[in-house]
Structures are given as structure tokens and as C-alpha cells.
């Protein structure tokens, strides 16, 4: 009987194709929006459990003294600590391309961020080159930069032209790492005459590795306590908490995305329901004949619901199949290259595919329920009287 229902899809091929296309588009949107949600939270999900971030208590944009780094390092439980300064610069040759530029102390930085994968010889070159910078592989690919290239960036926070030598290209062993950032030697920034008066020996934030992830709250508190009586106080939290607090700031947007993704599926169900209901109206006479020859109302329900589920599953499968090239190769690649700070890893999660297909099938059943009910309620004699 299910086969008969699937054959029914051939009756009006244009209508069937358009309905399947509508389901397919809805599923592509659903998969895309769910991937946006999972990519947003990937940073928090993949945060290192043994890292603590420390910033100025008032705001992220206010600097702290460089000496705090060593003082944090001296706190029991802290294994290593590294500073970071947001630099802010653009490549005049690629004026519209945004990428993060951060000044760090190379050895400290690589010790704290051990998921950054940089070949040993490139590390050495970076350590020894004051103007040396390392870039992520996706940034290198996007801007066509190679090791040994000399580049000039225009500072946005620190004005003027800044020359760098590409000392290395890093990849990452953890998906939360932004592979489109340029890290350069803090000494180059700190020793430059242009920063001497304004921000000499100042750092933006400190990231430390601790020996026991279970004590991160306690150690964060110890760090902040240390600077409690100073002019500049700090606010410390685990990397995960830091990422989560950032997500918290955009939670309204995430909720909206979530709602929109579900609304898309609701619209999909209405489209299928309308198509199936049209089919039921057109086949009233035929259903009368089926009832006459002995089919029961439940059999008609099977015909109608099977047809609805077949449309939604065909559309769902096509949507999922097309999502991979569109989301992962198209949109995902673009986001990873251009908005890596927000979407370092824009990939479709396997559970998103599973949820999409299950929801498509469930909505197919729901969409077919009302037309099936009306088919079941048809009176045989009345149905036979109606012209086919």
C-alpha cells in the first residue's frame, strides 16, 4: 500500500517537484541555521578546561601592566602565562579583508596555546625575528602570503605603517582556534617609539594554564585577589566561562536563530499539508471507489500519510545532500576564511543531519494527519457521487 502512495506522487509531477523543492530549501535553511548555532557554541564547547583568562576589571579594552604576567605566573597552580594585545591593522592591498592581529610573546604564547601547530624551524625563526609574525593557514591561503614574505600593514589603533616578515604558518589541533589570525612579536610593538608614551609595557589580557582544571574557579579567584588592592584590578575566569559569557551577550540572537530554524520547518509542514490536502480533495471519488471495494478508513490514512512522508523524506534527503556542498564548501568556507573569529569551524554536525531527517519525517506525518483525517471521514456513497 505504501508503494501505491509513493506512486501517487507521479500524478501531478510539477506539484510534487515544487513541494519537494520547498522541503529541500527548508531543510537547507534549517541545516544552515543549526550549523550557525553549533558553530557559535563551538568556541565554548572546545575551550581548554585548563586555561584562565584575566582582563582589566572594568573592560576588555583597558590595558593592564606587563608585570602582572609574571605575578600571575607566580600564583600557585599556574603553570604558565602569556600576554596578548589587540593590535588592529589592515593590509592596504586587501583593504576589505578583516583579520585579527595580536601581539604576543612567542614562547609564552605557544606554551599556553599548545594546540597551535607550528613546525620547529618556523618557531625558531619567529623567536629570533623581532618583526616576525605567524599566520594561520586559512589567512595565508586567502591573502596569498608565504613564509619569508615581507608585508606592510596599516595600524588602526597604533597608527602608521608596520612591516612584518612571515616567519611561519600555523595550523591547529583544536577546532576552536581561529586559523585566520596574525600573531606577532610583542617586543616589536612595545619597543616601537610610536607606542612608547601611550602603551609601553601594557598588555590587553593574560591567559594562563593551570595544573588542575578542577581548581580553575579557585585559581581565578586567587589571581583577582592578588590585584585587589592595586590601582588596576582584574577579572579572571575560565576560558570556557569567558567564551560562554561572550555567547551570553548574543543569546537573544541565538534564540532568534533557533526560532527561525523551527519556523522554517513549520512552513515546510504547511506546504506539504496543503499539497496533500489538494490531492485528497481531487481524489475524493477515487477514495470512494477504494472504500467500496473494501478498503477501510485506516487504509486511506496510510495512503495519505505515506504520500506526505514520502514527499518530506525525499525533500529532506535532497536538502541534506545539497547542504554539504552549499554549507560546508560554500558558506562554511567563506565564513571560516572571512569571519574565523566567530566561526572558526563551520561544519555540519552529524546530529544536525539526523535531527533534520527525523524532523522531516515527523513533520511529514503531522502534515498528512489532517488531510488523512478528512479522507477517513468521507462517506462512501457521497464520495462516489462526486465526479472524479
Amino acid at each position: 500500500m505504501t508503494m501505491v502512495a509513493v506512486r501517487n506522487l507521479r500524478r501531478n509531477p510539477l506539484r510534487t517537484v515544487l513541494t519537494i523543492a520547498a522541503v529541500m530549501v527548508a531543510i537547507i535553511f534549517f541545516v544552515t541555521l543549526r550549523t550557525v548555532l553549533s558553530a557559535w557554541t563551538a568556541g565554548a564547547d572546545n575551550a581548554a578546561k585548563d586555561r584562565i583568562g584575566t582582563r582589566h576589571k572594568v573592560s576588555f579594552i583597558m590595558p593592564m601592566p606587563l608585570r602582572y604576567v609574571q605575578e600571575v605566573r607566580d600564583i600557585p597552580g599556574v603553570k604558565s602565562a602569556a600576554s596578548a594585545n589587540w593590535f588592529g591593522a589592515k593590509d592596504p592591498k586587501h583593504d576589505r579583508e578583516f583579520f585579527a592581529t595580536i601581539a604576543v610573546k612567542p614562547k609564552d604564547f605557544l606554551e599556553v596555546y599548545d594546540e597551535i601547530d607550528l613546525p620547529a624551524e618556523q618557531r625558531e625563526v619567529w623567536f629570533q625575528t623581532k618583526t616576525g609574525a605567524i599566520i594561520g593557514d586559512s589567512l595565508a591561503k586567502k591573502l596569498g602570503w608565504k613564509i619569508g614574505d615581507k608585508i606592510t600593514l596599516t595600524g588602526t589603533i597604533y597608527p602608521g605603517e608596520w612591516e612584518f616578515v612571515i616567519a611561519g604558518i600555523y595550523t591547529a589541533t583544536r577546532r576552536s582556534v581561529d586559523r585566520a589570525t596574525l600573531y606577532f612579536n610583542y617586543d616589536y610593538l612595545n619597543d616601537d617609539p610610536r607606542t612608547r608614551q601611550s602603551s609601553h609595557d601594557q598588555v590587553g589580557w593574560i591567559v594562563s594554564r593551570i595544573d588542575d582544571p578542577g581548581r580553575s574557579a579557585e585559581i581565578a579567584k586567587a589571581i583577582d585577589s592578588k590585584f585587589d588592592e592595586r590601582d588596576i584590578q582584574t577579572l579572571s575566569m575560565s576560558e570556557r566561562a569567558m567564551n560562554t559569557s561572550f555567547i551570553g551577550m548574543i543569546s537573544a540572537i541565538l534564540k532568534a536563530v533557533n526560532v527561525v530554524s523551527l519556523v522554517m520547518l513549520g512552513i515546510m509542514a504547511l506546504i506539504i499539508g496543503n499539497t496533500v490536502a489538494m490531492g485528497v480533495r481531487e481524489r475524493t471519488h477515487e477514495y470512494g471507489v477504494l472504500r467500496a471495494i473494501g478498503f477501510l478508513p485506516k487504509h486511506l490514512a496510510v495512503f495519505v500519510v505515506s504520500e506526505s512522508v514520502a514527499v518530506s523524506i525525499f525533500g529532506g534527503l535532497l536538502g541534506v545532500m545539497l547542504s554539504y556542498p552549499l554549507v560546508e564548501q560554500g558558506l562554511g568556507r567563506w565564513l571560516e576564511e572571512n569571519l574565523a573569529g566567530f566561526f572558526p569551524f563551520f561544519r555540519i554536525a552529524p546530529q544536525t543531519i539526523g535531527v533534520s531527517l527525523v524532523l522531516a519525517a515527523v513533520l511529514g506525518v503531522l502534515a498528512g494527519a489532517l488531510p488523512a483525517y478528512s479522507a477517513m471521514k468521507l462517506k462512501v456513497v457521497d464520495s462516489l457521487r462526486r465526479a472524479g
Partner: protein
Amino acid sequence: MSTDTSSQSANGAIVSAKRVRKTYLRGKEELNVLQDLDLTVHEGAFEALMGPSGSGKSTLLNLIAGLDRPTSGTIEVAGVDVGALPERARAKWRAANIGFIFQTYNMMPVLTALENVELPLLLARLSGKERRERATTALEVVGLKERMQHYPRELSGGQEQRVAIARAIVTDPRLIVADEPTGDLDRKSADDVLALLDRLNQEFNKTIIMVTHDPAAAERAKKVHHLDKGALL
């Protein structure tokens, strides 16, 4: 084809309608379509119901076939009081005992002739192979075995009606009810269909009750009942 008559009544009647009344409500108005009608049809009969539009022919046929219930009176078909059966039981009874032939053939356009004939067998506990074999035999009886893979759109009106007849006989029913079976056909095709019904009656001893406006069709029947205003004349 079976010719079992085990469940017919003692006097050989396969259909026995007694004081059958059917009333419809049209708004607040009561419409008496059949009025205290008595009818007996014997096993192996080929009988026609004729009468003007609105005389109650199709209503009577629907009651005999178990598609509807009389307002009062009883209709026994093959020893079963059809009107007393609940909806679900009536559907099963129809599937086992009645073959339907409609004026407009009513084939499913997405199924081949063979698959259309197989449809009633989906309700029986048969394997796919058995279903196909029985459907093929039914198509052979109506002379369309070679067209069994054709879709309804690839058949003429007469051929479609013959496929419908194959669908009606595939479950080997006791009684075949035909509502204007030649109403949509040209004379030649109509004669072919009538000859086929005649053969089913003569050769396979099928009881046939046919509603028709067509005098040529009525001539084929062994007995013609005339209805007017819900009563047999």
C-alpha cells in the same frame, strides 16, 4: 471462478430485500427515495434495474452492495443481513462478496492495468506472486492479458471498463453490481462489455445486478425491474 451457493437462502435467493425504505434528509425536508420495496434476486441471475433519474435505482444498488444502510427493512445478501453489519464488518464483507463496476471505470491512473486489478487483493492475505497470478487470470478472462502493463491512459474506454470488470471479479465475488457500466461507452465497446458480463453470468455463474438507462443493455439481462418514485412497478 467459484460457483459456491452454500450461503444462499432456501428458495435460492442471493438477494432478498424486504420492506426496504430509504429516507434522506434534505435540510428539514424528508426525502423518501425507496418506499417499502421488496426484491428477490436468485443466484446466477442477470438482472437489470431501470427507471428515470431519481427513481432510486442507484440507491437500491448501494444498499444491496452494502455501501449504505436502509432506513428500515432488511436486505439479506448471501444469507447476511448487510444493513445490520457495522461499518468495518461491511467493508470486509464487500471485499469478499461484491464486485463493483462503475460508469466511469475509476482506475488509478498511476497504476498499470495489472496493478489496478491487484488492488482488491491487497486486502487479502496473499503473496505478491499469488496476487499477480490471480490478477493475470482475471485480465485473461476479460481478454486484456497482453495489455496488463499498460496504464489506463494507454487504454480505450472499452478496454478500461474491461479492466474494471477484471478488478471486480479478481476476488471471485458472489455478486457483481454494475452501475451504468456502458454509460460512457460507444455502442461497439458497450456491446463488448455486455457480452463479457453475459459470459461471466453464463460461464462462471456470477450473479449480476446492473443499473442502466440503456435499453440495449437491459435486453441482455434475463430480468428487468422497473423503478419509479422509489417503488418497483
